[in-house]
């Protein structure tokens, strides 16, 4: 199912714990490192880099492939994709093969065939969104930066 509503993205994040990040980089200038570092240091998610060229990022072991990851940790809740849109079909196939529950295509990673294939295989699919931004939307991070979280509530956080 392609998740287009803000509440659907919130529910996906609420039921997920593990994130396998395909294309994670150790270069501080790369967007994928920004997201990786945020997930590792500021979120409760367990994030793992998937990158055949790296052994680790900031002390977190990297796996060469999603299959290698799954052999060690089982299926991830979310496969987060930082790759050229033209080369993401194999990532979708591998995600389906290991039984990943959701696939998240980051900003600009838009490939209609890949989206359709993941959707048809029953994965939850998020397209052209940043997982860091969406987590921050629901945990108050966006609000610190004057960004429109869309949240209206008279409830005190943490008392529900």
């Amino acid at each position, binding site marked *: 199912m392609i998740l287009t509503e803000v509440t659907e993205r919130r529910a996906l994040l609420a039921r997920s714990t593990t994130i396998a990040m395909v294309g994670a980089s150790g270069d501080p*200038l790369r967007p994928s490192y920004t997201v990786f570092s945020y997930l590792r*240091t500021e979120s409760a998610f367990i994030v793992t880099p998937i990158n055949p060229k790296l052994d680790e990022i900031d002390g977190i072991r990297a796996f060469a492939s999603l299959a290698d990851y799954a052999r060690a940790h089982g299926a991830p809740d979310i496969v987060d994709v930082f790759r050229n849109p033209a080369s993401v079909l194999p990532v979708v196939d591998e995600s389906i093969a290991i039984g990943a529950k959701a696939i998240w295509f980051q900003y600009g990673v838009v490939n209609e065939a890949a989206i359709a294939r993941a959707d048809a295989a029953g994965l939850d699919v998020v397209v052209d969104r940043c997982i860091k*931004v969406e987590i921050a939307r629901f945990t108050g991070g966006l*609000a*610190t930066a*004057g960004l429109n979280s869309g949240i*209206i509530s008279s*409830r005190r956080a943490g008392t529900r």
Partner: protein
Amino acid sequence: MNDRSFGFATRAIHAGTPPDPVTGARAAPIYQSSAFVFGSTEAAAELFALRGYGHIYSRISNPTVASFEERMASLEGGLGAVAFSSGLAAQLAVVLALARNGDHILCSQNVYGGTVTQFSITLDRMGIGVTFVPIGDLAAMRAAVRPETKLLFVETIGNPAGAIADLETLARFAHENGIPLVVDNTFASPYCCRPIEFGADIVVASATKFICGHGTTVGGIVVDAGRFDYGSGRFPLLSEASRGYHGKVFTETFGEYAFLMRLRAEILRDVGSQLGAHDAWLLLQGLETLPIRMERHIANAAIVARHLEAHPDIEWVSYPGLPSHPDFALATRYLPRGAGSVFTFGIRGGREAGRRFIDALELWSHLANVGDAKSLVIHPASTTHSQLSDDEMRAAGVAPETVRLSVGLEDCDDLLWDIDQALEKAHADRRVSA
């Protein structure tokens, strides 16, 4: 958390201000603190590298200011907002975020005199060129676009003559030419018009006016729709490695948030034109009553405008809410709830009669501001537009006899009484001196 789409009046009160998570305070707390303690050295490094979320120093962000920013983003229908110390600081920041020495911008001829001065003199000194264009003449506008043009700036309701921007047409024009449409929404407020709904990319405003509503606080706001693609190559300040952030590429790292991030993390950080926490709090209080204030402003303005139009001592009234205004049709389309409460008229007897009229008023306040609960009056030719040449003044719709009103929230009968007695005095004096 619910998924309801709340209405405008609800968001004017609640957006950006859930109960304080620590104390449960229901009103927005004033976080009067210059700086904020880091959770750890690692967390501090994440913040400085723009990877984490949190407050560092109130020149860059502050919790009370962020509440105001989020509420404005919600009311304008934007992705996010950055507050500034004034409306002029806000619009300058937008230009600096998109343009540099050697670049060029387009600006409507029908804008606030302070904007004309800022763009044509201060920006010019910085090497950023500006061409003032008639926004009803697409051919003339097209002829003014250059390869280095970075934005088109217009006002929803032009100050002071009330020219209404045809936002959909201007957005299409801007996008066909590869540039964002920046709209100053000060005179309309998001209650009357939300330019983003008509294709605008960036909304700026002087928050001093209807947003504040009580004439207490100077502030400015920038709201970004997050829709414009700055990756076309035309905006290297956003799409190429930033010297201010060790080579970070804003469009690549922040996607739709690129403009807002650069506006805050580079422009606000380096220029230091931030809004203070206490001022943000006053603006939050103002926003809570924006919808009901605007209803009354508009109702009173319509009565005053019609009264003036029927008055024998008045030569003309220029209120876009009246059928006699050349942009009445545009106002009906873009400002269906009303055309605000700021407008101009010309008194019979010219500049001298206008001066006598203002001096005879007892309830209307003669000062340089608009959008106050109190009714205000000014003579633009000798004040707000006095730095302009005669040609610039005429292009902006200001005649020597023009008087500008900002109709407030008082009993309308009292406002009309004051106008009538002042017109009578202006008239009587003229008869005596003649």
